[in-house]
């Protein structure tokens, strides 16, 4: 079944023209008559009780229409049912610098900004926690009263008998790895426009419409209904074009609720667009993580056991934290064959912006540690790094020790491909000094088998309607955030129906129009919404086939739908069997057979004429559609997807996170050079192979691979959120350094197709799995180049130079505040690359950061 007309062909994004000409509309491009601008007052303190808020001066300012505070919307919410700990605006306490205190809706931005200055807030400053290991020791002044020791959640899993396996291992490596905090830095800052219809009977705000830059319209609708105490049916969420999310828009972000609360109070539409600094505060990025990792191998290089203790610095609220910490443990499995696993995960609350889901959710930092350690073990065994990975392959289909079902598994081919293309065998260890190669692998879920809100509802449903002229409209809840899901949906519908892409219009992510899809996160959309689209298309196709078969005097099974024609099997180029194998019979089928008599409704002369001509061997797509509409009265179909029970994982506590209907696989080789005098690392080339099951749209897959590698490279080399006493020192894209085009290396994206038995046309995820391999591939390449093993990311020049100097026993220069990047023990309170001996804000006397005497600043004159 590989003779496709649309699937597998490089296809331009259906929204490309709008985006390239500027005609496309993002949330901030929208406006409504009478619209107000909302601006949010943020907390200047990392941890404080609000004793009093007085908004009266702000309210009196000319041009201010409403000022709202926590009491205007006191219901708590959170993305996870177990983590309803956020409020639209603070009710009693603020928990990080940037927490939301009040919102002004005014006629323009500068008036709103001025009004913010007029809000008087009296705070009682509380001791704050910035280091997760410190925070876990807290007894009093907890961040949330119901979370003792500021521990959001901890999990302790043992599979097999790791202790025994370590005892029997030929080699054991054990080390601490530290990955500093990164954020998504999506191009589009978050924006929400909220508007209430005034109820004509009561004169009160009635139905609510929200346009928002979101990956999860359905969850937004749900949380809005909780906070605003409205029926979900009274709330319409529309997702306009979104300029990237990467997880940063995969949950309800404060402004989305605040805009609605402000609009309700102001009785006018309110739009809030975050400044870049606010985007950094809203955050939900990848937490700083401490990974204590121990791995054992036998003398042949087979992994015998893995033990990981992971501490995540989660920030002030739960967000996706419980899921993140579970992913970190669960996805130790499903890449390699590991018979014994121990996992201890701690998600810790601190007084910093909230961490959440970010591309490669939960897996990336642990993968950095694991793949680095695997190389260390290969070295002990004197074994080639590619070889040790080959020795530990799974043998699917199988279920891993921690309950993950693996079916399609393209990892062996991924490794072969990058080894071959990079010339690994002839070049590894043989490049000139200062230049090196490194290999690493990674994997990711194609959607979570269990949704956040436990229920049996399908994860995706798609409806299709076809009009008399053969126009196909697909109604999907899938949220295109730039990744191209609208295009994917159109491709699947067109391929299945055998019509051209031009016929297909996708109506997406509008909760009034489109059936539920739980959102664009965990790389679930192609797999799940794609399957739902496939099933919906098969449903309508069946209806068309029934009617067309009558016209053509054949069995529906004998029809081929292809290139805008419906033909008898023997006619034309042959190809696809009439009805694809997949999918269940549609409930519509029976009811529609008893449909109306053809020609009863529309007696177009065309149809009559055709009828007179007798049975034909071929109909155009329009003719077939007309026949079907005449026969059934209407032509619409629906399809849903829910992950199969077998894929939903084991029974242990926390087993719900990690299972997926299918896993993607990636292998990468990075070639780098290291300047030994400056510590600067240059990535010259990355060979990245990715098993995406089937590449529905190869250019799009390549784009995702390249994007993942690039983002991984940012985390590996330059990106890092830097803290000082809870202040984010680099809340902007100038000082938070995502790579620019200058240092972007050549990336050779290699597509591997393992054709998954359950994916739509065999497809799996392709947008997250590649990221995690990049960081360790670069780390391993740095080792090959200059022989230093970095245990702390990012590998900034000062860290690399410090490691190089330590290795050479050169005159020590305290380049990294005494923390050796090859064996870091703790977070520096302010993160990594800045050495702040500086003063910073005056805070609570009991702040952990205040206890140590502050070293005098370095002005040595």
């Amino acid at each position, binding site marked *: 079944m590989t003779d496709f007309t649309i699937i597998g062909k490089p296809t331009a994004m259906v929204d490309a023209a709008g985006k390239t000409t500027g005609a496309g509309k993002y949330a901030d491009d929208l406006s409504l008559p009478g619209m107000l601008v909302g601006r949010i007052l943020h907390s200047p303190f990392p941890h404080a009780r609000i004793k009093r808020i007085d908004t009266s001066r702000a309210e009196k300012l000319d041009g201010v229409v409403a000022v709202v505070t926590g009491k205007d919307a006191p219901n708590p919410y959170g993305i996870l049912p177990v983590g309803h700990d956020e409020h639209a605006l603070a009710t009693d306490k603020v928990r990080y610098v940037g927490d939301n205190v009040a919102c002004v809706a005014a006629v323009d931005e500068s008036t709103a900004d001025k009004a913010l200055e007029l809000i008087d807030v009296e705070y009682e400053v509380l001791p704050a926690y910035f280091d997760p290991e410190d925070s876990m020791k807290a007894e009093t002044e907890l961040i949330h009263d119901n979370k003792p020791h500021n521990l959001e959640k901890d999990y302790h899993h043992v599979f097999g008998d790791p202790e025994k396996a370590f005892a029997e291992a030929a080699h054991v490596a054990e080390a601490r790895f530290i990955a500093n905090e990164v954020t998504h830095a999506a191009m589009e800052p978050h924006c929400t426009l909220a508007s209430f219809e005034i109820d004509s009977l009561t004169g009160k705000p009635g139905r609510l419409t929200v346009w928002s830059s979101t990956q999860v319209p359905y969850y937004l609708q749900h949380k809005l209904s909780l906070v605003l105490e409205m029926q979900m049916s009274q709330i319409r969420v529309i997702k306009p074009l979104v300029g990237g999310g990467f997880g940063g828009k995969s949950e309800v972000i404060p402004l989305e609720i605040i805009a609605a609360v402000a609009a309700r109070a102001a009785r006018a539409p309110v739009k809030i667009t975050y400044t870049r600094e606010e985007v950094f505060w809203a955050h939900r990025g990848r937490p700083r993580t401490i990974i204590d990792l121990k791995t054992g191998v036998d003398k042949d290089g087979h992994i015998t056991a893995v033990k990981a203790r992971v501490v995540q610095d989660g920030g002030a609220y739960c967000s996706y934290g419980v899921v993140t910490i579970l992913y970190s443990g669960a996805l130790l499995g499903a890449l390699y064959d590991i018979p014994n696993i121990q996992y201890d995960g701690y998600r810790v609350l601190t007084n910093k912006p909230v961490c959440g889901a970010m591309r490669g959710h939960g897996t990336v930092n642990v993968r950095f540690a694991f793949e680095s350690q695997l190389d260390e073990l290969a070295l002990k065994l004197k074994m080639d790094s590619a070889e040790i990975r080959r020795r530990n392959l799974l043998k699917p289909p199988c279920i891993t020790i921690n309950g993950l079902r693996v079916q399609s598994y393209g990892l062996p081919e991924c490794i072969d491909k990058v080894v071959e293309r990079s010339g690994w065998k002839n070049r590894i260890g043989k490049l000139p000094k200062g230049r090196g190669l490194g290999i690493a692998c990674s994997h990711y879920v194609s959607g979570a088998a269990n949704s956040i809100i436990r229920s049996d509802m399908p994860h995706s449903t798609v409806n299709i309607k076809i009009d008399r002229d053969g126009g196909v409209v697909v109604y999907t809840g899938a949220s295109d955030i730039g990744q191209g899901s609208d295009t994917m949906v159109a491709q699947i519908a067109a391929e299945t129906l055998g019509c051209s892409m031009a016929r297909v219009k996708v109506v997406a992510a509008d909760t009034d129009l489109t059936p539920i899809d739980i959102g664009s996160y965990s790389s679930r959309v192609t797999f799940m919404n794609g399957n739902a689209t496939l099933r919906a298309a098969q449903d309508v196709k069946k209806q068309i086939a029934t009617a067309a078969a009558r016209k053509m005097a054949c069995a529906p099974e004998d029809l081929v739908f292809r290139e805008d024609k419906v033909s008898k099997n023997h006619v034309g180029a042959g190809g696809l069997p009439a009805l694809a194998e997949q999918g269940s019979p549609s409930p519509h089928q029976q009811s529609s057979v008893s449909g109306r008599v053809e020609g009863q409704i529309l007696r177009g002369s065309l149809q009559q004429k055709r009828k007179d001509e007798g049975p034909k061997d071929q109909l155009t797509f329009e003719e077939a559609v007309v026949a079907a509409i005449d026969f059934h009265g209407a032509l619409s179909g629906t399809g849903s997807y829910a992950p199969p029970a077998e894929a939903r994982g084991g029974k242990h506590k926390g087993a719900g996170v990690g299972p997926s209907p299918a896993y993607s696989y990636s292998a990468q080789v990075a070639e780098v050079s290291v300047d030994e005098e400056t510590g600067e690392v240059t990535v010259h080339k990355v060979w990245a192979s990715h098993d995406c099951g089937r590449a529905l749209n190869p250019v799009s897959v390549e784009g995702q691979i390249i994007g993942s590698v690039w983002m991984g490279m940012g985390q590996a080399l*330059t990106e890092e959120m830097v803290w000082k006493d809870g202040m984010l020192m680099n809340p902007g894209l100038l000082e938070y350094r995502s790579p620019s085009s200058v240092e972007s290396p050549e990336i050779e994206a290699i597509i591997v197709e393992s054709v998954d038995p359950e994916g739509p046309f065999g497809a799996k995820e392709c947008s997250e799995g590649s990221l995690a391999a990049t960081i360790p591939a670069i780390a391993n390449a740095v080792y090959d180049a200059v022989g230093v093993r970095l245990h702390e990311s990012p590998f900034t020049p000062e860290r690399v130079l410090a490691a190089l100097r330590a290795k050479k026993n050169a005159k020590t220069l305290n380049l990294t505040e005494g923390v050796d990047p090859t064996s870091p023990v703790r977070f520096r309170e302010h993160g990594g690359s800045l050495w702040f001996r500086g003063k910073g804000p005056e805070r609570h006397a009991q702040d952990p950061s205040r206890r140590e005497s502050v070293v005098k600043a370095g002005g040595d004159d």
Partner: protein
Amino acid sequence: MSLPQFRLLRPRTLDEAVGYLAKHTDKLRVLAGGTDLIPSMRQKLFEPEYVLDIRHVVELKGIQPRAGEGVSIGALTSLSTIEHSDFLRRHYPVLPEAAATVASPVLRNMGTLGGNICLDTRCLWYNQSLTWRKGCGFCIKKDGDLCHVAPGGSKCWAVFSGDTPPALLCLNAEVEIAGPSGLRRLPLREFYTGVGDAYRKLRPSELLTRVFLPEASVDYLGVYRKLRVRGSIDYPLAGVAVVLKRSNGHVSDARLAITAVNPAPLLVKGASEMLAGKVIDEALAEAVGDLAAKTAKPLTTSALTPEYRREMIRVFAKRAVLAANN
């Protein structure tokens, strides 16, 4: 972040501009390319009553070689014009090289040479939004009375982070300043004060109009080396410019200047003497590097640790000397 409200003044001639300056003095800020001023105004670092947009004063634009007297460059000349000027590339190569490293191509199209010279000093505790600074506590440079970088002291150490001034210093550039009492001329090395807050010797009623490069500095070999984390956009975290002239393989004259590690760009004292009359080799280049590193006083005003930045001044100075000699 909204811009604070201000009145925009748009003079067409230098006289008109000077007139406005005399009238509004410290209630006014000059806007050239705006690439530095506008972001700072959004952060409420400046809330002037008037903004004097000098972009239409044509007489301040352009590169004018003056026979036997070097070259005069208008303050409003864009950095990309300087970067691409054949004349400068041929005769004063260190300047276009330095200009080409500023920010990104888009910003170089907007940014001017005058703006680069007058560039506000930078500090991570200062170049932040009003909300941020409120949360952290104000500092000496703006609204406060303490320094986060050097807490004990009463001095501001905000760092000068322009790329072209070290090149200009090496070329012995002079600047022309227009004010109520006419024009004055000043060697660039006397333009900066060496403190982070009042960093330049320019009265509120004055305008920088022109930069002169002397004939004597023509045809020096020159190199600029810049420490940045990314290959584009980033301000320098350390920068070294070097110019030298040789005869018979020996250095006949040389100068070396550093930027982004002190509140002012500085000529490294003693570097000329160290190089003069010598044949450049590794050891000599290293000695110059050590000297440059001693002049550098990096603090925690910027990304990367001060120790690292000082070390890079050493490495980059060495490399720049060797490269210029090649």
